[in-house]
């Protein structure tokens, strides 16, 4: 008997009990759609975390000065300037794994346009900052090296600041804003960057050349950097390498002996990001295993119904055997039946799961991420459930004694 005929017989048997077949397949439908939806949710959450971290900058390292110590009290990182402009130059020029490095001097201060004012974070930095933060101007231009060298009084505004000082639609480029009463010409507006993973508004900031910052906004030590340094590596692997190299370089430059602690702090954002991703991965695994359990329950449902079906159709099995069906034919017939049930359930489950994932993605503003491998795995798994749980009933049917089976009432 060829497979197509076996399939036809199976379909006919299943359609004979439509409601029962539907309810049996429902277990698999729920299991598979749960797997698909849960994994999509997990992936969506993961992508959101990833997006949040990449908005901070790509392969970003943050370098801060060491801590002051007066008596037993430590001032915390950054409180004691240890990093020099020469350190920064050395990091930029000597380490090939470093793509960009820029000082970040910041201060919260009121700034004003002609008729409005707003208190925001003024950042003194250099062109590398835009590379390190993976952040571009939307209109106008970036700070340039020559702005930094000549200490030009120019400023690039974040979106939020533009709105507060000029209103929604205005084009501020060419206008003057005053920071600490010093007039700065607006040369650019940054693209919207959104929120940090902690909810801080990235766009509520203005950028000025670091030299201008030091001369006009907050005077400071000329040799030391009173702020932090943002460093970006070429790739995640480079970030790890850069972290090690920077540490070695700075320890050497600061003449630290082997028994002395670092007088600076160097952190990688990708470490934080990967910790977060571990979290979402655990969540995905958890959700997927719950879904897998429901698939298993669906499989038990199939086995149960197949056993009932074998009992009900004992006479039919006996007859088929009497007129020439081999045990193998009977085995195949019931196995195909349970396979059809579980695969049909699996396919319906996939479409339901996709629908649910789409709905949830729209509802919670997640990116809709469907992993095609999960679809194949889910359908494959439901097929496997059909075979595994169908095998026992099918074997039972195939091993019936035709005489007993024909006599069965």
């Amino acid at each position, binding site marked *: 008997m*060829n497979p197509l005929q076996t399939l036809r017989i199976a379909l*006919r048997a299943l359609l004979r009990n439509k409601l029962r077949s539907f309810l049996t397949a429902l277990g698999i439908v729920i299991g598979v759609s749960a797997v698909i939806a849960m994994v999509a949710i997990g992936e969506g959450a993961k992508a959101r975390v990833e997006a949040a971290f990449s908005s901070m900058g790509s392969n970003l390292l943050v370098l801060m000065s060491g801590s002051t110590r007066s008596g037993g009290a430590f001032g915390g990182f950054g409180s004691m300037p240890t990093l020099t402009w020469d350190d920064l130059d050395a990091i930029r020029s000597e380490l090939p794994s470093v793509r960009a490095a820029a000082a970040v001097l910041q201060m919260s201060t009121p700034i004003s346009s002609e008729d409005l004012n707003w208190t925001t974070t003024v950042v003194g930095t250099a062109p590398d900052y835009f590379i390190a933060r993976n952040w571009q101007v939307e209109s106008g231009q970036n700070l340039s090296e020559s702005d930094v060298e000549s200490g030009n009084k120019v400023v690039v505004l974040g979106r939020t600041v533009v709105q507060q000082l000029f209103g929604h639609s205005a084009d501020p480029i060419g206008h003057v804003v005053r920071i600490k009463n010093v007039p700065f010409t607006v040369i650019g507006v940054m693209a919207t960057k959104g929120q940090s993973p902690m909810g801080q508004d990235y766009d509520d900031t203005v950028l000025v050349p670091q030299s201008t910052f030091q001369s006009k906004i907050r005077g400071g030590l000329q040799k030391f950097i009173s702020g932090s340094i943002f460093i970006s590596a070429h790739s995640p692997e480079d970030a790890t390498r850069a972290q090690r190299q920077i540490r070695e370089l700075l320890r050497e430059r600061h003449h630290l002996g082997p028994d002395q602690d670092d007088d600076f702090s160097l952190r990688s954002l990708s470490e934080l990001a990967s910790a977060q991703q571990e979290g979402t991965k655990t969540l995905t695994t958890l959700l997927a295993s719950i879904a897998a359990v429901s698939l298993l329950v669906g499989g038990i449902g199939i086995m149960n119904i197949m056993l009932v079906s074998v009992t009900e159709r004992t006479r039919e099995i006996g*007859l088929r*055997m*009497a*007129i*020439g*069906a*081999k*045990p193998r034919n009977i085995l195949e017939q019931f196995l195909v039946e349970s396979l059809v049930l579980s695969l049909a359930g699996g396919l319906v489950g996939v479409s339901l799961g996709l629908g649910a994932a789409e709905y949830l993605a729209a509802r919670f503003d997640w990116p809709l991420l469907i992993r095609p491998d999960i679809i194949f795995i889910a359908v494959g798994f439901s097929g496997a459930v059909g075979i595994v749980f169908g095998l026992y009933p099918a074997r039972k049917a195939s091993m019936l004694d035709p005489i007993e089976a024909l006599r069965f009432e």
Partner: protein
Amino acid sequence: MSANSLIELTDVKKEYRMGDTTVRALAGVSLRIEAGEFVAVMGSSGSGKSTLMNLLGCLDRPTSGSYLLDGRDVSKLGRDVLAEIRNRTLGFVFQSFNLLTRTSALENVELPLLYAGVGAQERKRRAEAALTRVGLQSRMHHHPNQMSGGQQQRVAIARALVNSPVVILADEPTGNLDSRTSLEIMALFQELGESGMTIVLVTHEDDIASFATRRLVMRDGALLDDRRQTPEVAARLLQQLQVAS
């Protein structure tokens, strides 16, 4: 010993173990049936006639003794080979018809051909021919629940015939039918017998056995009586019945 007996049982014994006790269903039966014979097997329940039928039908294997079917010793073959023999060499007709419900007459008749691996067109052609032979050419697409008992039994006979078997084994084929329909079915069996088909029929009704050319009576797992007879003609009785009514 002639070499061309169709069925040749030699000292066939069948024992069943039921718990601690052994039940002897057949106590050494030797029997030959020639091609073209119409044999009625009679006996009360427990006489061993059902066991004999099961053995003849290759549904069961004897505990000891040999069974030659069409020259082949089938007493020690495996399940798969026995299934093939049932499919190609034997045709079964049951008391309760055993048709698949919600399946047309044509498809019911096609079933043995399906297991024989016959192609779709050939299946249909042969199933139609078999149904025509039992007089159901106009009911090929009816389902069993749309047919009378006699018609259902005709479908079952067509199914038994469709693979051109050597022997037809009928187990109380008229047990569920009224006397008139029984006559019709027996007329059909006689017609098949006249065309050279070998038929073995189990019954406990004397008048049904009277249509056979040979009558076996069993008791306690042994053959009590074996005699050839001139059969009644079912078709003639049927005609008389029609004239009378």
